């Protein structure tokens, strides 16, 4: 203790000098950001390089685990990409009108899968029951009828197109009353057949075939096809009319799902009427 006090008293001047310099240094580092950061940097440089050295050696042991973490992170990020998502609810639009009651609503949808070359062709839409799509609804494209919704999942729906051997769309010639049906013989995806048009109808090449609206699936007056050949088979009451479909089924992309708001009412009424027939 005595030695310590002796040391202090002997070097009191030097210690006082150090004390004042210490205060000055404190002022320097407290008030000058540049010197402080430089000081911290240089003191970190020493410890930093040491830790880097240690890390270089130890990181090899963790490589497997790190790889796994990175792969999991990659998968997570990939899942968040917009490309791996679909729109669940589309843009439905309804028009309110006091004179006309809305009979059909349209839901836009995108074709995500389609075939044209099979005997029975289907397309898949990116809208399902979440977007209000139900089985039995009609599907139209920008240029005509596409088909009828066959099955529906929550996010997708499968559509039986006109290019299906069992497809039968109620149709008529524009500006004529005679009803017929648009069918497909399963051969050329560009051509369909208009059947059940009686021979007394006046059919010309190039006439437009439109939807009749009687089926309660499609609105009336949608263009379907144009007449390309007319035959009058012997012994039959009806024309054999070949029509060129307006839709190019190879190119369809954006379509609309048609919902007939009044269909339930119509179907119920018709069912009741038929039931009455059976009971009689």
């Amino acid at each position, binding site marked *: 203790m005595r030695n310590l006090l002796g040391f202090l008293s002997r070097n009191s001047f030097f210690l006082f000098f150090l004390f004042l310099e210490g205060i000055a240094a404190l002022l320097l580092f407290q008030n000058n950001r540049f*010197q402080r950061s430089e000081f911290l940097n240089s003191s970190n440089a020493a410890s930093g390089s040491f830790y880097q050295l240690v890390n270089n050696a130890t990181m090899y042991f963790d490589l497997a685990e790190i790889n796994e973490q990175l792969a999991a992170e990659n998968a997570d990020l990939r899942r968040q990409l917009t490309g791996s998502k679909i729109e669940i609810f589309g843009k439905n639009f309804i028009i309110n009108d006091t004179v006309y009651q809305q009979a059909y609503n349209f839901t836009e949808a995108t074709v995500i899968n389609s075939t044209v070359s099979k005997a029975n062709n289907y397309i898949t839409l990116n809208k399902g029951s979440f977007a209000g799509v139900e089985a039995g609804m009609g599907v139209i494209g920008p240029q005509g009828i596409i088909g009828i919704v066959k099955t529906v999942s929550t996010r997708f729906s499968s559509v039986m197109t006109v290019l299906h051997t069992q497809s039968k769309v109620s149709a008529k010639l524009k500006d004529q009353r005679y009803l017929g049906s648009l069918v497909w013989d399963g051969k050329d995806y560009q051509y369909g057949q208009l059947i059940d048009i009686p021979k007394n109808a006046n059919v010309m090449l190039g006439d437009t075939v439109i939807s009749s609206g009687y089926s309660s699936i499609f609105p009336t007056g949608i263009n379907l096809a144009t007449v390309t050949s007319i035959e009058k088979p012997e012994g039959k009451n009806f024309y054999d009319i070949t029509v060129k479909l307006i839709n190019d089924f190879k190119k369809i992309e954006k379509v609309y799902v048609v919902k007939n708001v009044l269909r339930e009412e119509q179907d119920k009424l018709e069912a009741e009427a038929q039931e009455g027939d059976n009971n009689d």
Partner: protein
Amino acid sequence: MIRQILTFTLLFLFLIALQVLVLNNIQLGGYLNPYLYVLFVLLLPFDTPKWLLLIVAFALGFGVDLFSSTMGMHTMAIVFMAFLRLGVLKLIAPRDGYDASQKPGLQDFDFRWFLTYASILTFAHHFLLFFIEVFRFSDFFFTFSKVITSSGFTILLLLVSQLFNYNAQAKR
């Protein structure tokens, strides 16, 4: 004694004002930054107590720092210089030591003594100051050249300042 204190107080204030108002604005080409306020520490009487020397130096540096917003830099440099002053005085002491009636300056000592005295301390002060300012030893020679040129300029100013109260008749 009272008169001496008053004189040095006025000198203290004058040197700080001169430094922050005039000399801090002189920066020729980024090389020449004269720091004439070191004159105050140089001129303090020989019999100034050691601790008082440091405290006065500290106050002087703090005053300059306060007005040049360089907290701590000048304080550190000038306290270091004041600390060195004792050793330098001992080193260049005349054979018969210092007389209490003598004042460190051209009036009482010859030119060579004063030049040595002022040069060593000024250089030490400037060296510390400039290296604290840049705070790195890379570009050492660039900083060092600034130290040399600025020290030379300051020493020149110190010599000129000595002529203000130089009395040729009173020269011993």
